[in-house]
């Protein structure tokens, strides 16, 4: 019971921090799905998303999918498991030791999507959705997920130098996700999350095992490294 009491305020905090979707009031959110995601708890019950998308995609978590308190920050392991899914399966990023190891185009696309969607697996398909964002917004969003950095995001293929904006055809990432958080270890100010992804709801066919390393920066967890096995 204590755990569930703790979850409520933490979820509120996570909601504010996990997404960049509220950082630019200029950007029109015509089809946003800004609901917070809800993942499986370790008791095996599943909580579905409660928004009204035409296709309602879900994340089916399990294992050590939990909230951790690390150096003043709250870390939702399920949330970062999904970030790992996004980085590899949706953006093709494999091993990286720091943000410089991430392809800048993939990085900006990751941030770009998060400007509009908390969860990329909810992004709908089937339509041509043009998106535009400023460099400031992109950079801010990247910083929120990966911490302070000196990435020159204008090198991205999504950057239009003529207009000086980022442009993107919105990817159609909508999918169900199946995963188990195998472990979430706190090592000083770092958190190592080990997660396995599956291709089916019964989690009988394993895809990859991904290890994500987080660090705490300004009381928030940011992604510092990833390894795909």
């Amino acid at each position, binding site marked *: 019971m204590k755990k569930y009491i703790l979850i409520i305020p933490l979820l509120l905090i996570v909601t504010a921090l996990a997404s960049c979707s509220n950082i630019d009031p200029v950007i029109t959110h015509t089809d946003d799905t800004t609901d917070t995601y809800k993942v499986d708890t370790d008791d095996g019950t599943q909580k579905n998303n409660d928004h009204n998308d035409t296709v309602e995609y879900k994340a089916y978590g399990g294992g050590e999918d939990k909230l951790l308190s690390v150096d003043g920050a709250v870390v939702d392991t399920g949330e970062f498991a999904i970030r790992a899914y996004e980085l590899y399966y949706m953006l*093709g*990023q494999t091993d990286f030791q720091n943000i410089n190891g991430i392809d800048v185009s*993939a990085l900006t696309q990751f941030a770009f999507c998060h400007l509009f969607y908390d969860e990329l697996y909810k992004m709908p398909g089937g339509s041509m959705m*043009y998106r535009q964002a400023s460099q400031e917004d992109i950079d801010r969003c990247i910083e929120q997920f990966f911490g302070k950095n000196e990435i020159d995001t204008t090198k991205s293929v999504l950057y*239009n*130098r003529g207009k000086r904006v980022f*442009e*993107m*055809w919105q990817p159609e990432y909508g999918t169900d996700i199946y995963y188990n958080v195998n472990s979430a270890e706190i090592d000083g100010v770092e958190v190592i999350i080990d997660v396995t992804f599956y291709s089916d709801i019964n989690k009988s066919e394993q895809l990859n095992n991904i290890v994500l390393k987080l660090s705490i920066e300004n009381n928030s967890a940011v992604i510092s490294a990833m390894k795909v096995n």
Partner: protein
Amino acid sequence: MKKVIAALISALLILALVPVQVSAFDTVTISGNEDTVISGSGSVYDISGFTGNIMLEDAVIKGEGRSAVFVKDNSDVNFILKGTTEIEGDENNFSCGIEVEIGSTVRFSGDGTLYVKGGKYGAGIGSYGTTTNIPEEERVNVGKIYINSGTVIATAGARGSGIGSGYHVNGNYIEINGGTVYAYGRECGAGIGTGYGTSGGAIGVAAVGEYDCGTIIINGGTVRAYAGNNDSFVKNADKAAEMLKNMEFGDTDEIIAELNANDPGSFAAGIGGGYGSSASRIEINGGDVLAVGSCGGAGIGAGRGTSKASQYNKDEYKANIKIGGNAKVIAITATSRSNEINGGGAAIGTGRGSHTGGNIEISGQANVIAFSATKSPAIGPSAQKSPVDGTIPHAESITVGSDVTLYAASYGDYAVDKDAVNLSIDPKYFGSSDRWFFGEDHKNIEDKNNVAVQSPEGEREYKVPSNTVSLWSNIVSAPAQPGNGQSSIEGKGDIIVILPLAMAIRTADGSVYYHGDVISDIEYDTPYQFRMCTVDWSTRRETKVHEPYEVYTPGHGDYEGDGAENETKGFSYNGSVVYSFILSSKRPVSEDIQNEFNAETKTLTIYTYSVYKTKGYTDMYTPVDENGEKIPSYGDALMLLDNNNFFMAYRFYFISENYAEKIANAEVNAAEMVSLINGETEKTMSLAEIEEIGINFMKGTGIDKVVEPTESLSINLPLGATVKVKAYSDVLNDNLKEALIKAKESGNYEDEIPESPSYIKDSETPLFVRTDEIFTEESWTTRFWKVTTDENGAIRTELLKAN
């Protein structure tokens, strides 16, 4: 009494219609005004002071020592043609076929055919002449000639015109209102006009320009006038005319070369002046006319002039030409002198060696084709320098009406004299393919490409002979043709999408366009956004159809759903990069440029009128029709996306964990491998070396759901997508673990497409690859194998993994 009178009148009438029977070489004089019939063989006729009808019915008349028929003493004769009549002057004596004395008039009508040929220095119909220049008052001048119907084939004698005057004689008045007329000049005589005027005498006697064709008016009929009568010249002129009329320019160079090679060198116009003769008044108001000039003579206009100022009368040499009504005219000028290619006569205008281009007016709804087989303008003056002051001559005036249909072409710099003293042409009607109207800046000329043109044979595709400077008038909006840059909607355009293999684009409205598709009704100068997509090869159109593959879970750019949905979408991976295209209404800096890509804005500008250059683009992208024939594509507005601004070609190599074992077991390519590394104890293999030893079973696209894995060795992918790569294997190559991926930095991989094996097995773990990462050999060299041999000669391999 009444019966007697009646019988007498009847007898007189009968007598009047009885054919005149003459014996050979008799001279028969016909006078008065009674209708007369000439038939059978006869020698010569004097028609003196006669006014009325004379039927020529199957007669054969040859002059000896004189013209075969001499019309004189203010006669006004209407020759009614019936059957076939042949009339010929004496080639050994100054004479004509039908000589028409000044003051007399001849008219031709009927439905028969007349072959008429001039004698020495004489016209077929008209006057004969003299050997030398003589004062005007002493010349044998010619009367008036009308042709209203029937068929007249008039051939000049030496130095005469087909119809008109003879040597050293002015023309007078010729009017053709109907019928069919073939007129052949000879030895410096025009087809219709004057005979040999002068090669230049003293001014005051007969300098160049002082002889003149008089008035030539064509209101109707079919007229073919040649400045020569040799068969090869006429035949090639006809072929050239046919080419121009039909706009079949494929053999233009050969046809024109033949025409020039067979040019008789007569220095005369087809219609107008002979050598040294002016053309003070030519009016063509109707009819179907072909006029072919020779060797410095205009097609229609004046004859060749002179290079000597002392022999040139600049006040007299003139060419005044009007073409109007609904006339259909083809004027051609040729030359047999290679050194005069730079400046023959104009097709319509003046001849070589003149000081003017004359006054030329083309009006009404005339259809005119003017073709200069030399470097002189088709309309205007010769390009040869003036005998007066050494400057390039210019027309005094050139006027082309707005309803005129005109095609003019020249091998020189200008199709029409751009520097005519008075020039009145609406520039919006003119264009050219190779070079523009005046051969200079044509930035402001619209309708540059992909237009149809009005020709004498109706609306036709815009085509011009190669190597010519061409001018078209009456360029009209093309009928709606796919991709010709011009839409069926006024002010909008169409473009053809050119894509690499197995790719498509999707525009903002969701429409999908494949290679060769047309995007219609595009606003000019307006950006349209689009994205690149990889086609699901199971639905691609350009190759064999495959059974659909198992649908992968959604979320990576490919689709889940029923067949209809996939069919509609037709592609598997979407790029996220936002591109724009603009159909420009402006011209490119160079006509070679079809598209310009601005990498800063990711915008492709498409020009509608740049000339398609095969050398710049491979044939594989040349549109073909249903018969496989290449579609003439100059002018097509092509949206060229088959370059690495828009996609990357990825090639995947899969590596087996137990490859060393396989080599050791000589299962695959062991001999090649051993040979390659013979004598080396260790070798890090490059991509080229791996390919060289033929480990082809390791290759495959491996891209799930895009293509059958071993069908192609590479795949084109859009930027900004993430593709799922599975390492498929066949029975020889299981346990595939790693995929090496190489993106080609430019161009396509032109892969062979092997037969698909029947047994395919997935690797255990797919890879997910971001497509905008450009792999280079340097960036993944460390992923190559390290192949070693131990002291026993056994081959060892070690996979060098990426960092």
